[in-house]
């Protein structure tokens, strides 16, 4: 064996080790959470019905969640991208049409101008957007100690309860879990960090652990029409599911069509594989 070839062998071995080491770093990166979560807890794992490739919403849960939203959350938070008619649509809470009309009619919307050029108020119709509790952001701030209660239409998609490339791939971003965790995560005893947090509440599931919203849900705060016991956990779970639907109203259609598409593509790929093999059968390649 010549010195030259031995030298090359050495380079090759070193290189292989180097590649392996780099690959190992890579694997470690994949597993570790990408974003440093700080001292904030990862969201609690909730077993929602809409998880997984075939999971759909639970109508009862969405209807109860809507009740919690209207009676509690909706006092401060807007829901700008939902229309009342959505409540009757397929894949949602699926309230009957006349019930949706009655729900809408409980809210007054500004309409006009009429023949005299005056704006007037009228009861909302199913085609109207959800009526917001405050006319604008400034009014919302002024009534909530300077903190703006965010719009809830997309919150379940705009927040992540889970972090890390791999974790999110398997479990999703955990938006609904995040909401559930924050709603159930208030703690009376805050750790003393030597800082004055003013009117903020301690909640280790909220980024930074201090939240402007005081604990919103307490036992038996709402009286469920279907007789379900209104524990804090139950209400939180219901409203989290409702907010997931509000953010992704086409989830059920998406999974249903997706399944058909995947099956179709598997069949087509199989057929094309055999076509390709047949065509190439006589070619030396």
């Amino acid at each position: 064996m010549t010195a030259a070839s031995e030298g090359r062998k050495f380079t090759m071995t070193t290189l292989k080790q180097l590649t392996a080491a780099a690959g190992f770093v890579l694997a470690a990166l994949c597993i570790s959470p990408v974003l440093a979560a700080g001292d904030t807890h990862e969201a609690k794992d909730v077993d929602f019905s809409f998880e997984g490739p075939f999971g759909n919403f639970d109508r009862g849960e969405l209807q109860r969640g809507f009740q919690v939203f209207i009676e509690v959350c909706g006092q401060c938070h807007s829901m700008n991208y939902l229309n009342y008619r959505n409540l009757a649509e397929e894949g949602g809470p699926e309230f009957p049409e006349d019930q949706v009309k009655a729900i809408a009619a409980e809210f007054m919307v500004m309409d006009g101008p009429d023949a005299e050029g005056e704006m007037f108020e009228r009861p909302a119709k199913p085609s109207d957007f959800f009526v917001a509790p405050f006319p604008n952001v400034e009014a919302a701030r002024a009534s909530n100690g300077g903190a703006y209660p965010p719009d809830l239409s997309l919150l379940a998609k705009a927040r992540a309860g889970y972090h890390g490339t791999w974790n999110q791939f398997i479990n999703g971003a955990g938006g609904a879990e995040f909401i559930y965790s924050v709603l159930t995560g208030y703690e009376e005893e805050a750790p003393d960090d030597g800082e004055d947090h003013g009117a903020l509440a301690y909640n280790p599931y909220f980024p930074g652990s201090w939240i402007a919203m005081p604990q919103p849900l307490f036992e038996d705060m709402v009286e469920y029409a279907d007789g379900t016991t209104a524990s804090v956990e139950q209400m939180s779970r219901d409203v989290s599911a409702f907010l997931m639907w509000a953010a992704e109203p086409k989830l059920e259609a998406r999974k249903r069509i997706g399944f058909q598409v995947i099956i179709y593509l598997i069949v087509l790929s199989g057929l094309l594989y055999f076509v390709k093999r047949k065509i190439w059968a006589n070619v030396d390649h």
Partner: protein
Amino acid sequence: MAGHSNFETNNPLIKWVETRLPIFGLMQSQAMDFPTPKNLNYWWTFGGILTFCLAVQIVVGIVLAMHYTPHVDMAFGSVEHIMRNVNYGWMLRYIHATGGSMFFIAVYIHMFRGMYYGSYKEPRELLWILGVVILLVMMATAFLGYVLPWGQMSFWGAKVITSLFSAVPLVGEDLVVWLWGGFSVDNPTLNRFYSLHYLLPFVLVGVVFLHIWALHVTGNNNPTGISVKSEQDTISFHPYYTMKDAFAMALFVLVFAFFVFYKPNYLGHPINYQEADPLVTPEHIVPEWYFLPFYAILRSIPHKLLGVIAMFASIFVLVILPWLDTSRVRSARYRPIFKQFFWLLVIDCVILGFVGANPPEGTWLLVGQIGTAYYFLHFLVIIPLLGLIETPKPRPTSISQAVLDANKGKGGGADAVPSAQAAE
């Protein structure tokens, strides 16, 4: 152009057109009979897949433009309108958003394939450079498109990236104001981004046409890197490669569909579902995954102008790659040391991707700097040196010979038709 037309027809109408505009003959010679090396593997199917991606993005994009409103007060709402009210709007938007990612996955595989098999080397330098131009236009298109939904990340991504131009000496500040059409990213910015996002894909079509034209002049490279020597080395593009590409494309669409229907938001950022707020910056501003390695290079250099230069240089270095590579051998198959360094580069790029997703502090900054240094080291030092010091493995005399050897190696090939002599 390789392959001349032997198009024949008895249809008088087609004949009439053909004598005035020989388009059928062109299609026959370039898309059907085009002689293609018979040993292309599945990594070669990504060219077709990329054409497919571009077509999907254009068709779905035109459809989305029928419902989208490029105004700061309505852009975010109009995207929600698409998601909630437009018939199949949610599907179309998810296809377009996921399609961007799929396009980049395919283009990166296509590029690394070119690097592995030396497809950029003489005589395909211009083909490769046109490819780099396509990458640049794609990046611009993707960046502009990401701004349109007018979420928090859209807005702040636009602000950060356009602010890069303020690093230009002397005219930087004026340049940024010109780009914005104001003193911040605002309605004029959104409007022009929309206009350009609609325009650039058609520029892409033009450059892709040139790219394919250049390919049809030189012909395909192949896994051996050995030039086509005789007709025994090639087969017609149709039906062999049309069907092979179709099969690969079906598998690709399967992955595509999985993301569209089951993980539509995985490749995006949750915070972009919050409408843009020019007064509040999100905690972490992170570009889409396909920009992360470049973003990491930008941030690894703690100097505004130099960081920007390094980022653009990381792409420009690809333009001069055909001349940096001194090796006489194209394919990594016969370059044992280069093969190792190739995989190191792949891993380096992925590591840079992870660095780009994390704040540039502590270990991340250090890893980013090492990764950046290695990236340039690979192209500027290792590649030129390797060609001089590496001893390539013996190569077969022709593509046919390589195929024959490979089949012999498998031990099978009993029913394989022996393919003529090894052409010299």
